[in-house]
Every structure is written in structure tokens, then in C-alpha cells.
């Protein structure tokens, strides 16, 4: 058996691959669910019901999808340029922390739209800087950014812990380790009444559109794609590889930072060290399921949010631990990586 490269990767193959990967993951996890003593069909039905069974459930799923779109986009943008940003989680927390810290009282007096814009931009800048450091280390000294960005996550989360126990601790929180809340008039308006779904979803979708246009239509996008696909040829043709990498790092880190901002401005209002159920890491899964395509990111983020939200409901209804959500996500990532192999190669005897 050997692998033979396909002449061209068809669009159909790219659309079929994630669907097939998800189906394979569902089948494999069915075994685990059965082992927990529950019929997989019942469990999956509960999951779907939990994620889409009511108006509230749907809004909850979309609320969960909003930051995932941004962290997925962050990973996709970076991976396209072969910048392996595993630090989405840290960049998310930095964005969240900046939003809560600045948004509590410092911006009082500014008109609301401007204050919100300032918070988002500052969060993006924080996330951007958090990734530009590792990118610079890679450029100057060849330090592997997989290691640096991954380890920075833990440093950032410990720093967040320090802040919410210390300078930014909310005195009104009865001793709970949570930050001061963002000023209530800065909170993003709801999209649907009596739900947690907020305008952050629109911010995320806008970001998708912007990234798509940047990638496909601009000089920067063309250079980034060339540099990602064949750095030597790109450098020969005059693409400044270092500058391109730094700009990609800024964009990717910024998007993950923005995810943190909309989460604080939207549903939570303040920062805790447990506010993210792994948005940054799940962003990597989202990016891969999307085959790094901006539009695919939206669909993949909704899928992952479905699994997260649905698994909670399923767990309550059937007693299967909600950790199955993590397993399902991990298995679909592995299945997707395998599926991507088959979109590029065909197997020959």
C-alpha cells in the first residue's frame, strides 16, 4: 500500500472530510457511551435536544460558539502561515483580563461605543503582544513556538489568578476569586431577549468576513499564503518573511484576545480563572475541522459548541459523564487529520 498525491484537492472532498470525520468520531464514542450503560442513540438524541431543543438551548449554543469562532479563526490564521499558535487560551485570558480591568471604571465618561471599541482594541493588542513575543523568539533564535505559546498559557492563567485574588479582586463577591465587573453600561446588548446571546456573535462573524477578505483579496493575504506554503520561494520572490510572520502573529493573537473581550463584555461580565472551558484549545480543533478556512470556522465552531452544550444536557439526563464532550472533540480532531490526509493523497495498492 502506498500514498499517491492527488492532482488537485477537490472542493467536494474538503466539504465531505469534516462531515466524515465527525461521523467517525460519533461512532467511536458510541462505544464509550455504551460502556457507561446508556444507549448511544438515546445519548446523542439527548445531546441534540440539549443543544437545539428549545429557544433557550439554541441561544446558549450560539453564545458558546461566539468565542469559539474567534479562537478558531485565530488558530486558522496562524496555521495557514505555519505559525503554530497553541497559546489561544492564554491570549483569550489576557483579552478578558484587560477588558475587565480597563472596563471597570477607567473608561467612565467616554461615550459607550467608543469605550467598547477601546476595550476590544486593547484586548486585541494584549493578545497580539502575547503571541508576538514567541514569534520574535522563533525568528531571532529559532525557539519552537509550540512550546513557548503552550507554556505561556499556564503563566497567563496563574497571572489571572494573581490579579483576581489581588489588585482586581471584586470586594463585593463574598470572597470568591473573581475580578471586578466591567461597567454595566459597557456590556454588549442581547441579540435575543431573555437569553445570554449577545452582539458578540456579530462581532465574531464580522471578524470572519474581514479575515476572509484579507486572506483572499489583499497583498498581505497573498504574501502570507505564499510564505506559509513555500517560505523559500516566497523569500526569493521578495516577501519579507519576518515581517509577515509578525503581522500574522499580531492578527492571530488579536483574534484570540478579542474572544476574551466579548466573553467578558457579553455573558460573564467579570473574569475568573475557570471562565473558559478551553476556548483556546478548542479553537485548534475548530480550525482543523474547518480545514483552516474562515467560513468553515463558523460551522466548526457551532459543531463544537453543540457538543459542549449538548453534553451537559445529556449528562444531566442520562448520567453519562460530560467529559464525553472532550473525548468526542479530541476524536473528531484525530479523525479530521486522517480525513485531510485522504483529501490530499489517494491510496494505491
Amino acid at each position, binding site marked *: 500500500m502506498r500514498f499517491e498525491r492527488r492532482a488537485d484537492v477537490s472542493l467536494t472532498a474538503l466539504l465531505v472530510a469534516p462531515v466524515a470525520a465527525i461521523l467517525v468520531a460519533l461512532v467511536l464514542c458510541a462505544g464509550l457511551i455504551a460502556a457507561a450503560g446508556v444507549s448511544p442513540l438515546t445519548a446523542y438524541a439527548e445531546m441534540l435536544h440539549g443543544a437545539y431543543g428549545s429557544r433557550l438551548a439554541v441561544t446558549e449554543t450560539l453564545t458558546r460558539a461566539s468565542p469559539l469562532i474567534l479562537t478558531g479563526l485565530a488558530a486558522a490564521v496562524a496555521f495557514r502561515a505555519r505559525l503554530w499558535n497553541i497559546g489561544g487560551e492564554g491570549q483569550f485570558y489576557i483579552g478578558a483580563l484587560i477588558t475587565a480591568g480597563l472596563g471597570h471604571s477607567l473608561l467612565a465618561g467616554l461615550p459607550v461605543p467608543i469605550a467598547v471599541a477601546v476595550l476590544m482594541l486593547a484586548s486585541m493588542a494584549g493578545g497580539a503582544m502575547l503571541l508576538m513575543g514567541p514569534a520574535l523568539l522563533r525568528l531571532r533564535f529559532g525557539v519552537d513556538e509550540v512550546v513557548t505559546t503552550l507554556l505561556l498559557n499556564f503563566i497567563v492563567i496563574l497571572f489571572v489568578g494573581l490579579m483576581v485574588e489581588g489588585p482586581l479582586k471584586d470586594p463585593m463577591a463574598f470572597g470568591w476569586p473573581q475580578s471586578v465587573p466591567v461597567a454595566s453600561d459597557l456590556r454588549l446588548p442581547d441579540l435575543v431577549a431573555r437569553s445570554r446571546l449577545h452582539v458578540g456573535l456579530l462581532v465574531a462573524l464580522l471578524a470572519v468576513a474581514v479575515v476572509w477578505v484579507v486572506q483572499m483579496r489583499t497583498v498581505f493575504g497573498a504574501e502570507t499564503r505564499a510564505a506559509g506554503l513555500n517560505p523559500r*520561494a516566497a523569500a526569493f520572490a521578495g516577501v519579507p518573511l519576518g515581517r509577515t510572520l509578525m503581522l500574522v502573529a499580531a492578527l492571530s493573537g488579536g483574534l484570540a484576545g478579542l474572544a476574551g473581550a466579548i466573553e467578558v463584555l457579553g455573558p460573564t461580565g467579570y473574569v475568573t480563572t475557570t471562565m473558559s472551558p478551553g476556548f483556546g484549545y478548542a479553537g485548534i480543533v475548530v480550525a482543523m475541522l474547518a480545514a483552516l478556512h474562515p467560513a468553515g470556522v463558523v460551522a466548526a465552531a457551532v459543531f463544537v459548541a453543540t457538543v459542549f452544550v449538548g453534553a451537559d444536557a445529556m449528562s444531566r439526563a442520562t448520567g453519562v459523564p460530560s467529559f464525553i464532550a472532550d473525548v468526542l472533540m479530541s476524536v473528531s480532531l484525530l479523525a479530521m487529520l486522517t480525513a485531510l490526509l485522504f483529501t490530499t493523497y489517494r491510496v494505491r495498492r
Partner: protein
Amino acid sequence: MTRPVLELNRITKRFGGLVANDAVTLHLMPGEILALLGENGAGKTTLMNILFGHYTADEGEVLVEGTPLPPGKPRAAIAAGVGMVHQHFTLAGNLTVLENILIGSEPLWRLDSHRAEARARIANIAETFGLPVNPDARVADLSVGERQRVEIIKALYRKARILILDEPTAVLARPEAEQLFRTLRGMTEGGLSIIFISHKLHEVMSASDRVVVLRGGKVVAERKTSATTPSELAELMVGRQVTRPRRAAHTTGKPVIVAQGLTVDEAGKRGLDAVDFQVCEGEILGIVGVSGNGQAVLGRVLSGLARPSSGRLTFQDSDISRLTPRDLIRLGLGRVPEDRHAEGAVGELAVWENAVLERLKDPAFSRRGFVRRAAARAHAAELIARFDIRGATPETRTRLLSGGNMQKLILGRNLAAAPRFLLANQPTRGLDEGAIAAVHAELLAAREAGAAILLISEDLEEASALSDRIQAIVKGRLSQPIASEAADARTLGLMMAGVWGAQDAV
């Protein structure tokens, strides 16, 4: 009459609608060197892969000493005494020569591998066939010529009596290639029969006993090498008369690019050592030499990818030694890189994207940071038409182009901007005759139009046909230039061996 050791009977292989081999019949006599000549895509490699069992033929059979080989079984081919040396070597770089030779020839689960015995046999093979090699060297540390030797020994170790070499000289410099053919000749005296695949006329003429010419998957001719000529073979191979163009005498203008004492240090090594050269308007300066003598560094410094540590490099009297690739392109310097796949184009991008990649910031192709896609596509279509890039539309993935057509694209994107200077680094390496003639014609046309061209080439025929003056590069140093008319093979050979001043003797 002796019986052939190998016969291929009416082999046909189709890939979808494409007929790669169409009823190909050929035979190999004992002790013979048979050249399989054909352009890229003529079906040579497919045929040999069928013979070796990598592919299964749709029709036809392979006979080794009268016995049919079961199709699709490389092990059966090896057992029958067929050895294959692929164009891209199949060695593990992290293992030693000995280990590479043993892999696959002894069972995996055996605990006591017979190393001492193997070592003795390898020494014996090396001795008999003149293939010196150190069995304990790591393959990663060997030169390509040595790696090829290991591949040949590996085949012989498995008792091959028929040796197939797929484009054996594609990766070798001229002297290494000549050494290889001397070795092969010696091996036939030891009883081996050899088929080598090639599209290079001179090596077919000098190294084979008999030539079979393939074109479009069919055998179009078979000739005794002694009874044919290179021009006849070229015509048979291409299917029409192909003559490489030669330069016509004309006067050259003032110097465009001048290097004085140019020195480049890379990674602690001196890549270029105080070289002087100048190229004038309407002139081609040829730089010849055995590969690995500083051509790559010279190419990089003229492409803006390496910085000189001392010396001067000027273009139209201004210093360009510190400029980036983008600056050089903007100034009007064209550059054709040595490795078209690794540096010339991004294979996964469309032809139109590669066509404008160097000039994305040019107002013709972008406005306010946005790519003018319509203009870029139109430009690509123009290049495709003007430079006869076959099998391409602006939307084609560049990776799908043949080597020759990819080179035409790279050449085209440089020449379309009418550069004042063009670096052409190994512009025809690996191309077939038809494509070589096309590239040469383009270079000469640019010269007529007044461009100064620096041609780096290992192909002496090419260098002397195109260049007005020639300099040799040896260990990072350049010889004095000599006029192309004075550059016979002997003179060039001496220059490339580092014997400066030889030109005074001529």
C-alpha cells in the same frame, strides 16, 4: 546467437485516459548497455517501474532469461536478478551504508544479522566493480555521487545481473557522471547487463551500446549507438528537428552590473572569495564550474538573499549589495533561481498568483493593499501566450506544470518586466531538449533586447553556445574571463580544475 537476458513484450499501461506505454517491446542482451532515451513524459520511468513490479501492466509481459516475471511483485523481480537504482534515492540517511544495504535483504526478526559476512561481501563487490565506499559511514554524510554508489552496491548485493538506472546523472556533476559511466562499463565486463534512462544526448552517445528511443509512450526507433548521431537522436526523441539556438555576434554596451572583490561569508565559511566580474548591456557572461564551488552563493548574493562581507556590487553605478529581493526586483533585476520547485514558484498557488508574486506591490497589480485580480489574471494569460507555457491556464495549480513549462513561467515573469539584468542560475537543468531550446531562445532574445545576463551553468555546451565571455568558478574564486570563441573543451576543463592562466597558453 545468444538469448536476451531481458525481454519486454508489448507492454501497455494506461493511467485513466492517458496511455503511458503503448505496446512497448524491447530486449536487453547480456553484457550490454542499453540507453532508453526520451523526453520527460515519454513513458521511460513508467516502463521501468512495470519491469521492476512497482506498477502492473495492463497488457504485455516481462521475461527474464525466458521466464515470465509475475506482474506487480518487486520481490520477484529482485529474486530474478533485476536491480533498480531510482532517480530519487531510497536510502535512510540516519543509518550507515552497511545497514542500508542490509535492510530488506535479511528477515526482520533475525537476531544475529550476519554483519561480518555482509561486510566482506560488500568489500568484495566494491573491489570487483570499482565502487569504493566506507560501509560504516552514515548515509546522511555522503555526497550524492557516493549515495548513488551505495544504491548500486545494494542492487549488486542482492545478486542483480540486470541493473536499471533511472536518470542516473540527474543529480551528478559532470565528472561524477563520467566516473559513473566508466564504472558501468567495467560492470558489463563482469557480466552485468544495464539499462539506463536518460534524456541527455551526450551521455547516451558516450556510454551506451544501443539506444531505444521512446516518444509518447511508443518505441519510435532503435539504433546501434555507433551508427547514429546526436542530431538524429534528438530529432527522433522530439519528433521534429530541434536545434538549440546559438548567439549571433553583436556589440555590447556599457557595464550594467559590476562586482569588485566581492566576498561572501556564510555560516563561518567563505562562499565567495574576492570575485570580480562585470556584465554589459546585451552581453551574456557564463559562469561555469563543477557544482558546489560557490555557484549557489553567487546566485543568492545576486538575488538579494545573501549579504557580502566585503567588496562592491553595483548595478548601473549604484551599490546594491545591501538590498532585499524586493528592492532588486523594483530596480529591474530579474532572477531565475537554481531550484525552480524550491525557490522559483509556490507549487500550491495558481499560475496567476505566481506570475505576480514578485510584483504584488506594483501599482499594476495592487491598489491600496488589495490585489487587482483581474489585472493579475490577464497578465498571467499574457505570459502563457507569449512564452508558450503549455498545459496552463491562469487558474492552474503551478505544481501541475511540467518542469519546462514551470521554467518558462519563471523566465516569463522576469522577462515580461524587460529587466536590465537577468540572473539565470542553471536555467535548463533537468529540462528536455524542446524546453532547453525554448529557454535558450528566450535568453538570447533578452540579450538582443539589451539585457545583461549572468548565466550560471554546469553544462559547458550551453555555456559556450550562449555566452559572450566565460569565467570559471572554483572554490568560491572566479577565473579571469575568456572570450567564448577561445573556450574549447580543454581550456574550460583546465579553468574548471582551477588552473588559472591556462587561457594565456591558448
